[in-house]
């Protein structure tokens, strides 16, 4: 009895023990609390049981357990991320890798199930070191950028984040600017490209810019002008190989019938599209169509034999830009042939 008292006393005066204030207020009774704790396990077990039963009855996989686990993982990750509060690091561009990776589950679902993306040649992307990825740009919203990012992160033997360059007018838009920065995008400015390449990142550029995304449905898979070849001179200066990418399928997600220029100017947008669904169906018109996608990464074009001074040679730069454009255009035609149908 005396010994026990002494132990109690020692525990009370101990410096080691963390002093936890008793929780104030109403607490649920113990059995209910235990149930609360075990609820996820019980639910999982029940769903598993249900899926086996349904499979036995119907002979098909009615409930995909893997998919369910992914959703559970997504929710859990979001909770964990919310718990870290301000204690996380972003890089100098405002990129938060952990947060971006937690969102990838959603983009992976789009990649695999919605657009059924078939990716070839992803091994051309170096597993370390810098490279400049150049792709065609289409579809009214830049979904092609997200799919290229997802492709490199999921299909490559060494997952890497691709940093895309965004037109500066999107960086001025609320919500979008926040999302783009947080997921690792930078401003489409030669200075940003150089800095990212010097940090040995994979940089994705769309030289067509809004000319590509804003073109009508009748012009699909016809590449626009490739800027002024600025991406080539940046690649030469940074000694980064250029990897052309052809994306097929992005043209059909929002078939743009017309462009309302005055409305676009009113809202400060580069274009205001009219599609069969937008703006007639309101927000429902923003849902992209489930076209079949193919992404092809072409063999890298090395620039290491060139001198950084060659970047000022406008003739060479324009010739190289045209080469890249030809490779992408040819890749588009080949992949269009390989595709059985627009939505198949």
């Amino acid at each position, binding site marked *: 009895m005396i010994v026990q008292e002494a132990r109690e006393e020692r525990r009370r005066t101990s410096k080691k023990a963390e002093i936890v204030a008793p929780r104030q207020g109403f607490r649920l009774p113990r059995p209910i609390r235990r149930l609360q704790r075990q609820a996820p396990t019980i639910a999982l077990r029940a769903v598993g049981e249900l899926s086996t039963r349904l499979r036995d009855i119907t002979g098909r996989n009615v409930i995909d357990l893997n998919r369910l686990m992914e959703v559970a993982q997504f929710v859990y990750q979001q909770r964990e991320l919310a718990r870290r509060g*301000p204690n996380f690091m*972003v890089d*100098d*561009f405002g990129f938060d890798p952990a947060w971006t990776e937690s969102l990838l589950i959603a983009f992976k679902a789009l990649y695999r199930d919605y657009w059924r993306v078939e990716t070839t040649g992803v091994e051309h992307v170096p597993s370390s070191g810098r490279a400049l990825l150049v792709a065609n740009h289409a579809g009214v919203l830049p979904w092609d950028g997200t799919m290229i990012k997802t492709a490199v992160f999921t299909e490559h033997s060494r997952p890497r984040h691709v940093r895309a360059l965004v037109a*500066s007018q999107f*960086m*001025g838009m609320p919500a979008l600017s926040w999302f783009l*920065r947080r997921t690792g995008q930078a401003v489409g*400015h030669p200075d*940003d490209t150089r800095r990212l390449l010097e940090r040995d990142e994979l940089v994705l550029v769309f030289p067509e810019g809004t000319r590509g995304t804003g073109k009508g449905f009748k012009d699909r898979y016809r590449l626009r002008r490739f800027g002024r070849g600025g991406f080539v001179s940046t690649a030469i200066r940074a000694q980064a190989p250029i990897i052309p990418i052809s994306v097929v399928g992005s043209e059909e997600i929002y078939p743009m019938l017309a462009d309302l220029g005055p409305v676009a100017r009113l809202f400060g947008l580069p274009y205001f599209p009219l599609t069969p669904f937008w703006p007639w169906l309101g927000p429902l018109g923003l849902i992209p169509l489930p076209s079949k996608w193919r992404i092809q990464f072409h063999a890298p074009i090395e620039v290491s034999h060139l001198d950084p001074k060659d970047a000022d040679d406008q003739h060479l730069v324009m010739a190289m830009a045209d080469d890249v454009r030809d490779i992408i255009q040819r890749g588009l035609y080949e992949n269009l042939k390989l595709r059985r149908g627009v939505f198949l």
Partner: protein
Amino acid sequence: MPPFSPHRVLVTGVSNPLGAEVARRLAPQVPFLFGCDKVDPVSALEEMDFVHADTRLSVIGKLVRQLKIDTVVHLAVMVDSPTEERSIHETDVIGTMNVLVGCAAPSSPVRRLVVKSSAVVYGASPSDPSFFSEDMTNWDKPASGITRDLLEMEQLVSEFALRNEHCGVTVLRLGLRVSEDTTLARYLSLPIVPTFAGFDPRLQLLHEDDAAEAVVRSVIGARPGVFNVAGDGVILLSQAIGIMGGRPAPVLPPYGRWLSRLGLKALAGVEMPAHLADILSFGVVMDCTRLVSELGWRPAYSTRQTMDALASGKNVDLVEPPSPPQEYELQVFLQQRRRRRQQLPAGRN
């Protein structure tokens, strides 16, 4: 050019906290230190000779010549100040012009000039690259009040540098500072911080100690040119608010900033200048590689550490509590006695 060491240094704007700290750090390193401002200094009076002079008047030129000043540290540049825009323009542009005119005469003894500027000079806008290097000031953009004033001021300084080759000119573009009395710090320490909806800009901060150290180093280790000075790394605005223990409330509409500024003033009592509203939606981040490569010095506090220091209240309080009148009298007495003592041996020789 032989290495020049500052001998007789004049610090303008010593009464502001940064000026006081610079004077305190310079005092043991230079033989003669003079300070001038239009209001009395609250501290650091003992180590220097204080002159009551307004930079907006031509008296500053006479002062420079009379005192045979060889190094001018121009810190009387208002960036974050509750005063109205008109007087900021007067101080920044007209005041700097006066100081430059005072230093410019062919017979002028001035060999070094250090001018304080700010990251605000770049002006935040979405079309800018992610990092500003020193040559990226935007002349063709319609700049808001203080940005325009600072640009004008820097142009005057660069013209001065071109015309007076015997005088090495250093311009320091200091990053945003969050000591207790800056607008940004007061904004961040609100319990519920209204932010612009849909924006979470990157912030780059500079600790007060590092700001003073940068000025002192550019006075001692003479390196002409323009330098960006800010801590390493960035933090997001939401992180900064979280560190301060507040809660971001994205309630300010992203368009029509002046309306939000009016609302903030009425509801929260925080007066947000136009340049700060831009910074809080688009952010200003500078590239400080030139500082590291040429001055060979890197701020001791990173952006994150600066914020942590502010949050834990460890940020060094530069302003000493205002001394009571008797103490002021005492300091004046001490200063006079020190001067008399200095004059005595000179008289014997």
